[in-house]
Structures are given as C-alpha cells and as structure tokens.
C-alpha cells in the first residue's frame, strides 16, 4: 500500500514537472513533436530507474558508511554522468535500434535536473531500497506522461493564430500553467 502511494504520488499529485519544476528544459525543448517526446520519455524512465538503484546503493553503502555525506552532490552528479555514458555505450554495442531511437536524448539527460532531483529527494525522504526504486519508476512515468500530453497539445497549437509576442516559449509556459492547474485536481488523492 505504501509503495502504491509513493508511485501514484510520483506520477500524478507530486509530478516532477508540474509540481517540483524539475526537467523543465527538456519539457520545453523536446515537447514540440509527439515522436521525440516519446523517445525522450522512454530514455528518462530508463535512466531514472537505474539512477534510483545505483545512487541508493552508493549513498547508503559508501557515503554513509565512511562518513562522507558532504560529498553527496559531487558523487551524485558524477554517478549520473557516468551512468548515462555507460548506458549509451552499452546500447550502441548491443541494441543499435534502440540506440538510434533514443539517439541524442541520452546525453541530454545528464543535465536534466529531474534525475539529480530524484536522487536528492530519495535521500531527503529516507526511502529504503524498494521504495526508492518504485519512486524512480513512478517519477519517470510521470515525466513521460506530462511530456506526451504537452506534445499532443503543442502539435495542435502549431496551427493556432497567436499574437506574435506569445509564439514559442511564452504560450508553451502558459499551456504548462493550465496543465498544472488541471493536475491540481489530483491533489486530494493523497498527501505526501
């Protein structure tokens, strides 16, 4: 039950993009077409799940054990950067199709703040291993959900007759605001 709550919270009520504002850059950058949004979303789910596992193990079994939690930020960012690099090399070698599909989105994930945010929240909320894993998967799915909804809306918006000053980023931000309002409807569901 506890795990289900963590999962639903990460996907809907405390969505990373619309509630914590994490991962806004890719959210604005790759949400103009459905195809790229889905590719980015899949890459993020994949890396988030891995990050949750690896950072949890490193934080609890290396940093805490040797009394080094102040190295948290440096360690996490290095872990994420090397993870992305390893995943990229692994995919290129063993699954060229998937590699081509995810393509340029993988390296971009290193600077996606939602990944580091995930690691930080996991430590802050003192999740155990399984909770952290569920949280990682949920956050990834939540990100993909919002990204694809946004891409769907923006594909329609591309044909809309907008005042010139609002074209591009401003209307995307305002749409995201309305989307955030809609997601507030879920907030009665659970408290975290």
């Amino acid at each position: 039950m506890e795990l289900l709550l963590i999962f639903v919270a990460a996907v809907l009520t405390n969505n990373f993009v619309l509630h914590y504002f994490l991962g806004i850059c890719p959210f604005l950058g790759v949400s103009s077409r459905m195809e790229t949004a889905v590719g980015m979303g899949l890459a993020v789910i994949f890396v988030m799940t891995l990050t949750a596992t690896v950072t949890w193990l490193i934080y609890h079994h290396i940093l805490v054990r040797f009394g080094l939690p102040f190295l948290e930020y440096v360690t996490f960012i290095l872990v994420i950067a090397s993870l992305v690099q390893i995943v990229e090399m692994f995919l290129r070698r063993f699954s060229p199709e998937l590699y081509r599909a995810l393509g340029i989105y993988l390296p971009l994930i290193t600077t996606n703040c939602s990944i580091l945010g995930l690691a930080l929240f996991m430590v802050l909320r003192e999740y155990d291993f399984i909770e952290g894993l569920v949280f990682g998967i949920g956050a990834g799915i939540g990100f993909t959900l919002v990204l694809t909804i946004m891409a769907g809306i923006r594909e329609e918006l591309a044909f809309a007759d907008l005042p010139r000053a609002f074209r591009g980023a401003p209307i995307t931000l305002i749409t995201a605001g309305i989307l955030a309002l809609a997601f507030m409807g879920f907030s009665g569901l659970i408290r975290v």
Partner: protein
Amino acid sequence: MERREEVSRRPWYQEYLKGLWEENPIFRMLLGMCPTLAVTTSALNGLSMGLATTFVLTSTSLVVSIIRKLVPGQVRIATFTVIIATFVTVADLFLKAKFPAISKALGPYVPLIVVNCFILGRQEVFASKNPTGRSILDALGVGSGFIFALTLLGSIRELLGSGEVFGHEVIPGWHPWVVMILPAGAFLTLGFLVAAMNAIERTK
C-alpha cells in the same frame, strides 16, 4: 580535439551589460528554468536563489578561466561539472550555517544549482575561451540578469499572491490569488513575462 581561443573583443563594460538584457538567461535564452519557477514564491526567495547562483557562477568562471589551457577537450564537461558541484556544496553549507530559514525555504533547489544549464553554458561558451578578468565580468553580468529576472518574478507572484513585496504590505486589503503561489502561477507569470519581453524587444 584542439580548441581555438576565441577571445571576445567587446569593450569590457559590454561584457557585463550583455548579461542583463541581450543574453539574459531567463528572458532571452530560457535557460535555468527549474529554480526560476520553483523558488520564486516570494521576492526574498527569488533574490536569495539569484545571489547563490551568481556566487557559484562567478567562482566557477574564475577557476575555469584560470585552468582553461590545462583541461583536455574530451573531459572538459566533466571537469566543469565537478567544479560547479564543489562551489554548490560551499554555497549550500554556508546557507545552512548562516541563513537556516532561507536554506529551508529553498530546500533541494540549492543542490540543484549543479544542473542549472546556464552555469555550464557560460563555461562552455565563455569562460573556457577568455581571460580571467573578462570571464568574471561575464559571469557577474549574467548573474545580475538572473537575479533581476528572479526578483521580478518573485515580486509579481508575491504581490498577486498575498499583496506584499519582500514581506511589506503594498496593496492593503488585497484578496490573495492563491494560485499565484502554487506551481500553476509560476508557469503563467513567466509565460506572460516572456511574452512582454518579446513585445518590448520587437519595438526596439
């Protein structure tokens, strides 16, 4: 991979001024959106976040411009990131020790300065190619542009959300628009602000 030195030839004061408007990270480049939207629930939070980020940006630019000829091209991104993470740790510990209230209000967004894309962006575009003096001016300029944007956004949200700015009552008897303090308000306000900046830019 040999990198050329592309030293900027602008007059020195331009190095500072360009960050305020022309290359303003928020309004013109749309970089570093996450902290911008998340912490601007009040003018004070916006200002503190801006100052912390400017500190990290300036210190990183200083170090990067000093060691710019020693860093091999292939590992430069990793090097810059570790330098940024180090200064973020410094800023975070300083805030925790001296301003616990602000540190609490900003929460995990202080460590998230590490992945603020425009800090890395300035290193890549500017500090890794220019002498130290210019790099610091550039960092201070972009930092000031960031502080300006965050404080403006924070003031507007605080004003509409509670009728106050920096905790001082501005509009007596204002009926608070709660939505401005909530996430949705951040997106809406920034959307309209960027649209306004676009409109101003066009009339120039």
